[in-house]
């Protein structure tokens, strides 16, 4: 089970009609799903939607009471395929993942789903991981919606709008027999706000009913001739039905005056930022009053042609605020204007940049430039705009810019993956640099200093697959890395099976830390914890052997750097051909500490004998060469200036956040670094034997120490 508890959030899911919900956007979506009578939820965790999965994982009683089935899918493809329950039956279902990474994986199932269409509402909650804080390639989900004809909702980023989008999204899906994507950006997922709840609803038609009275209709299956029928149906039936619903229910919103010389069309998600920019320009207030007509697309696909045409008609210019590229919406609006022969000037990419997150500053500048060009009078006597440049151009601030270091995310304190890459660095010192194919997961932090290991990353579970071409005779073998998350997601077949079948003569390191750690510490098939509702403790080694790998080594303690190094060396040099798989296993320290620390503290309080380990550095032994840091990068292993006038450079120092993982000792041993490190074993609540031994030892040792100190001719300190 994930080591974090979401018990408090689960209470929010139980709220009744009229009660106020106060919390994060992604949690509001979770509650809205239950209010909409959803019968099943599935998904694959990942920022920014992990929370939805985590909370439902802890919400067994709520789900059981409503009869909702919840599943942690093996991948986004599995999650998307789950929606097929809504194809033949009037059952509402929702799935979620991080996009576009997850949508890429799900694309096969999504195309099939969208082709045949759905009977029950099918909602895909998309965490659009774009802009600051994103961990993936910068792309749009929009194109998936267009190519497969899936409706795309992009509600204003406040909780009532988002909740409404969930509820009406299901209705829209049902009236148009089309799956619906609900796109929420990173900040919207994490926005704290409030809405008034409705009661949760049991699904009116259950999964049991479907199983017991199965229905089939060959026309829903993607095979000719039905597939041709599907395309015609998309154009002739589903599209017009969707347009009708969106218009009737006024899913898109209009704000500000009805008429004006200019107007702004925006994605719903851009609304708050646009309003703040208009406020700075003196054209709007914080309560939503606007002097400029605004057309807010809470549905960004499809567009409602006549709404767009009516909004643009009579205006000299309209600005489209559409984040990221290509500018599909702007292109579509241009087409609409041409078809309606409306000559309103359309601006978008131009005043606004083609790529990058539309931050407050970007919007302020873009909207300001648009207004200056098309309706300067509206800006009146122009209040001074906030401008950081005078500060940023100041000498002292420019001097600061040269000093402030980057601070990218990295391995946590005590991370068990650190020694794997320390060992890899040691092997490379012996055998020279190798081509290393990396994967997705915490282990990708190896590409950063101090390890600087890893050449490419091609996708989740695709690390070893991306070494496929290097299956040629050479003096060095390719190394590839994959986490347990990637392994179960896709890696077992696409990477391991692929390597076995093609007799790939490379080294594959599977980083097994018992959780899907990068996404928040969720369980996996190979997790070591017992989880009553999931099958865990499935061995990666067995799975690897099961698909035919002959050379497999299991390392049960990654902190054993010497063993790790020797195993890697053997894998790189053995005469054995075919894939060499090293499964390196140790528990994710972040989750281990969540699990172990409360137990430790309780035992200590209860007077039980407990031993805490942590590391330290003898600063008079350390010479400040920092070789240890270049093999670690641990946040708790740092440096400090000393007052020793004979030392120029800062010495290594370990702070109290050290969890005693052992990496420092093992690395300095394996790399023959230096004798500065010590491990301190601090025994709380010692037994009488501990105390007696300690007394004896310190008597003897103390005597010898005093003897030598007394004989030493030295200056007083």
């Amino acid at each position, binding site marked *: 089970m994930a080591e974090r508890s979401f018990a408090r959030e689960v209470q929010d899911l139980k709220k009744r009609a009229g009660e106020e919900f106060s919390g994060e956007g992604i949690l509001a979506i979770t509650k809205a799903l239950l209010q909409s009578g959803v019968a099943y939820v599935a998904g694959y965790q990942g920022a*920014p939607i992990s929370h939805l999965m985590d909370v439902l994982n802890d919400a067994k009683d709520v789900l059981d009471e409503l009869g909702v089935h919840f599943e942690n899918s093996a991948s986004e493809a599995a999650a998307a395929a789950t929606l097929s329950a809504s194809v033949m039956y009037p059952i509402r279902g929702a799935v979620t993942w991080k996009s576009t990474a997850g949508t890429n994986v799900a694309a096969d199932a999504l195309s099939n789903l969208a082709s045949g269409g759905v009977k029950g509402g099918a909602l895909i909650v998309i965490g659009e991981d774009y802009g600051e804080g994103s961990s993936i390639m910068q792309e749009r989900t929009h194109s998936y919606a267009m190519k497969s004809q899936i409706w795309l909702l992009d509600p204003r980023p406040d909780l009532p709008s988002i909740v409404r989008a969930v509820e009406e999204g299901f209705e829209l899906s049902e009236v148009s027999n089309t799956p619906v994507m609900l796109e929420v950006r990173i900040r919207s997922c994490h926005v*704290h706000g409030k809405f008034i709840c409705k009661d949760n609803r049991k699904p009116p038609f259950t999964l049991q009913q479907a199983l017991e009275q199965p229905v089939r209709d060959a026309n829903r299956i993607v095979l000719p001739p039905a597939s041709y029928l599907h395309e015609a149906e998309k154009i002739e039936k589903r599209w017009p039905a969707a347009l009708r619903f969106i218009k009737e229910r006024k899913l898109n919103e209009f704000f500000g005056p009805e008429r004006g010389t200019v107007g702004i069309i925006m994605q719903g998600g851009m609304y708050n930022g646009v309003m703040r920019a208009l406020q700075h320009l003196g054209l709007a207030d914080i309560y939503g009053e606007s002097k400029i007509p605004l057309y807010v697309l809470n549905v960004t696909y499809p567009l409602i042609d006549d709404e767009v045409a009516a909004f643009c008609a009579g205006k000299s210019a309209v600005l489209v605020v559409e984040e990221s590229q290509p500018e599909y919406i702007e292109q579509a609006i241009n087409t609409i204007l041409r078809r309606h022969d409306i000559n309103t000037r359309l601006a978008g990419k131009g005043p606004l940049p083609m790529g990058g997150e539309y931050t407050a500053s970007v919007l302020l500048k873009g909207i300001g430039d648009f207004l200056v060009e098309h309706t300067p009078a509206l800006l009146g006597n122009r209040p001074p705009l906030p401008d950081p440049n005078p500060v*940023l151009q100041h000498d002292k601030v420019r001097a600061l810019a040269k000093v402030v270091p980057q601070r990218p995310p990295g391995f946590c304190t005590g991370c068990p993956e650190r020694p794997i890459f320390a060992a890899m660095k040691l092997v490379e010192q012996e055998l020279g640099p190798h081509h290393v194919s990396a994967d997705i997961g915490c282990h990708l932090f190896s590409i950063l200093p101090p390890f600087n290991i890893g050449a490419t990353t091609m996708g989740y579970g695709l690390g070893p697959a991306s070494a496929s071409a290097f299956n040629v005779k050479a003096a060095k073998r390719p190394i590839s890395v994959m986490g347990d998350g990637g392994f179960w997601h896709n890696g077992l077949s696409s990477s391991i099976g692929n390597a076995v079948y093609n007799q790939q003569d490379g080294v594959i390191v599977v980083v097994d830390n018992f959780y899907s750690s990068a996404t928040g510490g969720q369980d996996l098939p190979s997790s070591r914890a017992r989880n009553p509702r999931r099958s865990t403790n499935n061995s990666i080694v067995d799975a690897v052997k099961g698909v035919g790998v002959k050379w497999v080594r299991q390392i049960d303690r990654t902190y054993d750097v010497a063993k790790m190094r020797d195993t890697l060396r053997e894998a790189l040099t053995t005469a054995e051909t075919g894939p060499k798989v090293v499964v390196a296993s140790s528990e994710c320290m972040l989750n281990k500490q969540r699990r172990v620390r409360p137990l430790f503290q309780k035992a200590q309080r209860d007077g039980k004998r407990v031993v805490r380990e942590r590391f330290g550095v003898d600063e008079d032994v350390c010479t400040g060469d920092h070789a240890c840091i270049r093999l670690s990068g641990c946040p708790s292993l740092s440096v400090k200036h000393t007052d020793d006038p004979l030392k120029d450079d800062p010495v290594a120092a370990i702070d109290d956040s050290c969890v005693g993982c052992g990496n420092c000792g093992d690395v300095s041993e394996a790399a023959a670094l230096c004798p500065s490190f010590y491990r301190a074993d601090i025994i709380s609540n010692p037994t009488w034997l501990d105390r007696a031994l300690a007394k004896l030892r310190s008597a003897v040792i103390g005597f010898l120490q005093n003897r030598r100190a007394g004989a030493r001719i030295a200056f007083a300190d």
Partner: protein
Amino acid sequence: MDDLARSTETLAADRPFGIAILAMGGQGGGVLTDWIVALAESQGWHAQSTSIAGVAQRTGATLYYIEMLKARDGLRPILSLMPSPGDVDVVVAAEWIEAGRSVLRGLVTPDKTLLVASTHRAYAVSEKEKPGDAIADPVAVTEALGVAARRVVAFDMEALAQRLGTVISAALFGALAGANALPFPREAYVAVIRAGGRGVEPSLKAFEAAAAHASQGGVAPIERARAKRLDALPLTAGHPLLERLLARIRGEFPDPAHALLYAGVRRLTDFQDADYADEYLDRVGRMAKLDNSAHGWALTGAAAKYIAVAMAYDDIIRIADLKTRGSRFDRVRREVRAAPNQILYMTEFMHPRAEEIVGTFPRGLGQWIENHRGAFRFIDRLVNKGRRIRTGTISAFLMLYFLGGMRGWRRRTLRHAQERAHLERWLDIAAAQAAGNYALAVEILNARRLVKGYSDTHARGLSKFDRVMAAAPLLTNRADGARWMRLLVASALQDEAGTDLDGTLKTIATL
């Protein structure tokens, strides 16, 4: 236009209160954000927070943003999901360089922003991994804040929180209260912490202490680096051998060098004995004779420092001696915060190789073994492995104690002979330059900084040093020779492999 003019008058002038929080993953930025939102809501305000945690929670820099506004009947404000320059009333930075980052992000404006920050440093990997000193200058942050912020309240909140057994978020919350950053009464803050339910008492203590500190305002003093301890020459030392050393310093050396020479003789009596410190003074004296007051005794100063460093080389005897001292046992107890009723044992991680072992052999024997690779490899196979030594147990202690007691033997060892020869070669190079290119001679002495570390790292440092020394003759006749020598040392400290150094050496070869 009439329509528009009218609608302008209907625009409300209300502006939200913006708070940006810059923290690193694991610092509790999320907790602080939740507290501030709960605080605002408890006082009848609308509040909205956002964050972009993502993978940045893994030790990376993270930004949280809160906007809030006093509620008006029936009106819902539209609040921004990200800070924009000019909107931020308060910036909270949970670390000093993060405070600097908030300025670079344009969040801090001189007409508006109160900055509440902890002055402690958590170094980035790029600051820690360099072989030299790459720690960012914290004074640059202080100076930029003087330009950028309306007001700054800053002190070490991490230390305060640690002392009171809690995390920095509670101290930051207290500092907000003490600095009157938000228009809410102190009791409302306390109520929010109490409602949180976890670790309430330590949190409240840190909150109160930080609030008291912050109410005095201002920025706690921050220095580039810790001041070096340069004790004045004492009048007496309590032992004739030591008195003799003091008398020599006083009689044979210029005043400006006294403090460093005293540090040097202290180190060398501690390393070996008073005779060895005498030898040290002889060597520095050789340089001092080439020096005069016209140059401010720079050569003597550099000699005093680096000859001491070179003579107190790190051998097994030294390590064993340092590891077994009573003062060291006490220091470790303090460092790991062991309570009096807790028992503490240390485990040392040693990995001697044949080089280190043979180094302690008598010079002749050691030399013979080094010249016979077979014998050397045999010894290496015997000794070269990681050894974990539990210093607190009697047998392990005795072994180290015995090794540490081999000081009397040291002058006869192979290592000593090697160190001595290397030292003399280096001093000859410096002495040769002193008359013709004084500044270069000083920098040749300063280059000793490159020799550090153990085993492979030591060998690499030594090889860099030797390469730098080999370039010295090329610089003899150059007026800017000293500048080039400084550049060589700086580039040698840039990376472990010496790539940067190779570049500088190539440039020098083309001069």
